């Protein structure tokens, strides 16, 4: 029986508090002064001891960003962000600049990740998952590095990659998401602090899940991580990111950039379980999750696959996309986005078909509850010359209650007569009839809701790595706050 089917029981076992990751780690941190200027950019670069080319790229990005304006087309509402009130760099103070091993890492940090269910000691770590732990602006530890290095796989923090693998970083940085791509990507390019870097050499199938666990801890701090993953010819890698933050009543900005590059016959599978603090039930606080994620299926027969479960954040604005450049390349997007209380999400994908015989699949499941607003926005573009390109899109919305809203903005542009496009959409509401039917079989309305929601999401959950599929289901139950009312 698939893991998806165990939910009802599991959700009962979860703690009653709605957001259990809301604790704060009391640790002294080293911060940049509030605000953004050339000096802030130089400060961050100097902290990391970056080479000149990296600083130059940051400064170029920053100066371009100054000419850009914040986008307003998205279907979300929030008060203006004061970019001068944000701290752009915060790092826990450590005895050494760069911990050489776990023994050098502050035990309070290890404890934090332990509490989050991400043990960093390799003997205790999740079997088959290598973790890069990013705390505020820096990576504090990366597990299983040595083991991966035996296969020629590089998995380290972005800062380390700049030092140790400058050729790879210079070759690929900004090739998928250029510094002038959009307002938030531009900001990130100027002030990105850390993130993960992975390179899988030709013909190597990465034997474990690579994973980054992002944690925002310090107050008034933005997190601007940058992730770059390269799968060389014939390589395969599956990558997973998780995100949490303490409960705070002010909003915090998270503007990340993720770039994926798959060369000939390579495959990258990228999964996200996003559970940033969503704000309280009245909509106070929470993370602004304004993220640019894009993968380039550069080589022939390459594949980029996104799976996301978005349950956290006050506002989510992200469109993990695929540029299908190589002939016969494949792009996938599987998404569950849930909004409850006053959460807002404007999320979806872009599939740009450039190569011949390129194929893409979009499965989007939006769930709205409370006063949540959930928008699916998708663009499928078939460029001229992308002969026999195919796309299948399905976007379904599920409404719980009568005060929430769901929106769908599909945009299909076809310049190639041989293209095949399919688009399906549905909107449904968990009805009184469905709940009553379940009740007459002995199932409470809360359990029934959970069951219906999980049934709705199943197609996407099945795409997640096994361990995380269970996690995702629990999260959905907790985010809807169903377990609090059971029994």
């Amino acid at each position: 029986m698939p893991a998806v089917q165990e939910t009802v029981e599991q959700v009962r076992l979860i703690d009653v508090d709605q957001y259990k990751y809301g604790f704060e780690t009391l640790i002294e941190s080293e911060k940049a002064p509030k605000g953004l200027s050339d000096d802030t950019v130089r400060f961050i670069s100097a902290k990391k001891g970056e080479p000149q080319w990296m600083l130059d790229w940051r400064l170029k990005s920053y100066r371009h960003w100054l000419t850009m304006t914040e986008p307003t087309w998205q279907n979300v509402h929030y008060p203006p962000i004061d970019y001068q009130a944000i701290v752009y760099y915060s790092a826990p103070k450590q005895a050494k600049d760069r911990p050489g091993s776990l023994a050098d890492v502050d035990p309070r940090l290890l404890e934090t990740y332990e509490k989050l269910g991400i043990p960093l000691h390799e003997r205790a770590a999740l079997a088959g998952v290598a973790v890069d732990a990013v705390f505020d602006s820096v990576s504090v530890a990366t597990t299983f590095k040595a083991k991966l290095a035996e296969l020629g796989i590089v998995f380290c923090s972005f800062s380390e990659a700049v030092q140790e693998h400058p050729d790879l970083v210079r070759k690929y940085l900004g090739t998928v998401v250029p510094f002038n791509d959009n307002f938030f990507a531009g900001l990130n390019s100027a002030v990105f602090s850390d993130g993960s870097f992975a390179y899988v050499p030709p013909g190597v199938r990465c034997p474990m899940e690579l994973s980054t666990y992002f944690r925002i801890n310090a107050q008034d701090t933005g997190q601007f991580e940058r992730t770059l993953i390269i799968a060389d010819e014939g390589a395969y890698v599956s990558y997973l990111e998780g995100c949490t933050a303490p409960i705070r009543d002010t909003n915090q900005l998270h503007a990340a950039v993720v770039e994926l590059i798959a060369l000939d016959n390579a495959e990258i599978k990228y999964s996200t379980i996003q559970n940033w603090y969503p704000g309280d039930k009245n909509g106070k606080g929470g993370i602004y999750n304004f993220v640019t994620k894009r993968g380039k299926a550069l080589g022939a027969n390459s594949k980029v696959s996104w799976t996301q479960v978005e349950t956290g954040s006050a506002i989510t604005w992200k469109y993990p996309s695929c540029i299908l450049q190589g002939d016969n390349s494949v792009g996938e997007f599987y998404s569950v986005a849930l909004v409850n209380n006053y959460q807002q999400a404007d999320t979806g994908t872009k599939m740009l078909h450039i190569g011949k015989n390129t194929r893409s699949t979009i499965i989007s499941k939006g769930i709205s509850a409370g006063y949540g607003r959930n928008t699916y926005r998708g663009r499928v573009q078939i460029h001229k010359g992308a002969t026999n390109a195919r796309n299948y899109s399905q976007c379904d919305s599920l409404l719980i209650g009568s005060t929430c809203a769901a929106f769908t903005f599909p945009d299909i542009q076809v310049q190639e007569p041989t293209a095949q496009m399919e688009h399906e959409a549905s909107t449904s509401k968990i009805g009184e009839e469905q709940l009553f039917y379940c009740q007459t079989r002995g199932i409470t309305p809360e359990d029934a809701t959970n069951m219906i929601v999980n049934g709705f999401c199943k197609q996407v959950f099945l795409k997640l790595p096994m361990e995380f599929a269970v996690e995702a289901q629990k999260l959905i139950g907790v985010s809807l706050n169903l377990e609090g009312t059971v029994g």
Partner: protein
Amino acid sequence: MLEIKDLHVKVAGKEILKGIDLSINAGEIHAVMGPNGSGKTTLAQVLAGRMTYEVTGGQARFEGKDLLVMKPEDRAREGVFMAFQYPVEIPGVSNAYFLKAAVNAIRKYHGREEIDAMDFVTLVQDKAKLLGLDETFMKRGLNEGFSGGEKKKNEVFQMAVLEPKLCVLDETDSGLDIDALRVVANGINVMRSPNRAMLVVTHYQRLLDYVIPDFVHVLVDGKIVKSGDADLARNLEKHGYGWILEETPRPPQAARA
């Protein structure tokens, strides 16, 4: 087992049931017949606990307990089952998963452990065989894309697996072809037991050719106007409801007489 006294029910402000008295003992099958709009489905839904139906008077006791104050899920856990006239579809939730959740919810209520996965499979296979059903439908979404006949068979199948004490069947025979009718009737008959009671709401005699009721009640305009044995149903089939209405004085007049 079930004791209904002077039950009055309003739906959307309109009185539908106007004083129902009905007593059902274990081992009995009662058929409730009546013309369209007489309140048959309302009676079934009220017993199952539909909250949109407002009870304005009277009572219903199940094994001595006040049924009307119980939540629908607790009624189910106590042993009341309702087979729906129009079962809902729940896409993505398999029949097997749904039924297992129901079995476990009921077991938990009675302080029993959850059913073992293998035991559940065996239970499902046994019941499917007993009813002459192909169990492959268990993997499909709950009633998802099922034909009307398949949905009704699934209701009877769920009833067989959950083994309730009181089965309320709301027009389970409507819209069935003759083969499906036989499967449904067979399901009801194999469920017949000295420990179990059934309330069969139906429009037609034809189900009662296969399931012989102990009692037949005729519901007209929210009241039971005539009760009898299986012969009553046959008479209705032959002569329609008209003769009862003529023969029976209108209830308010009877009260005055």
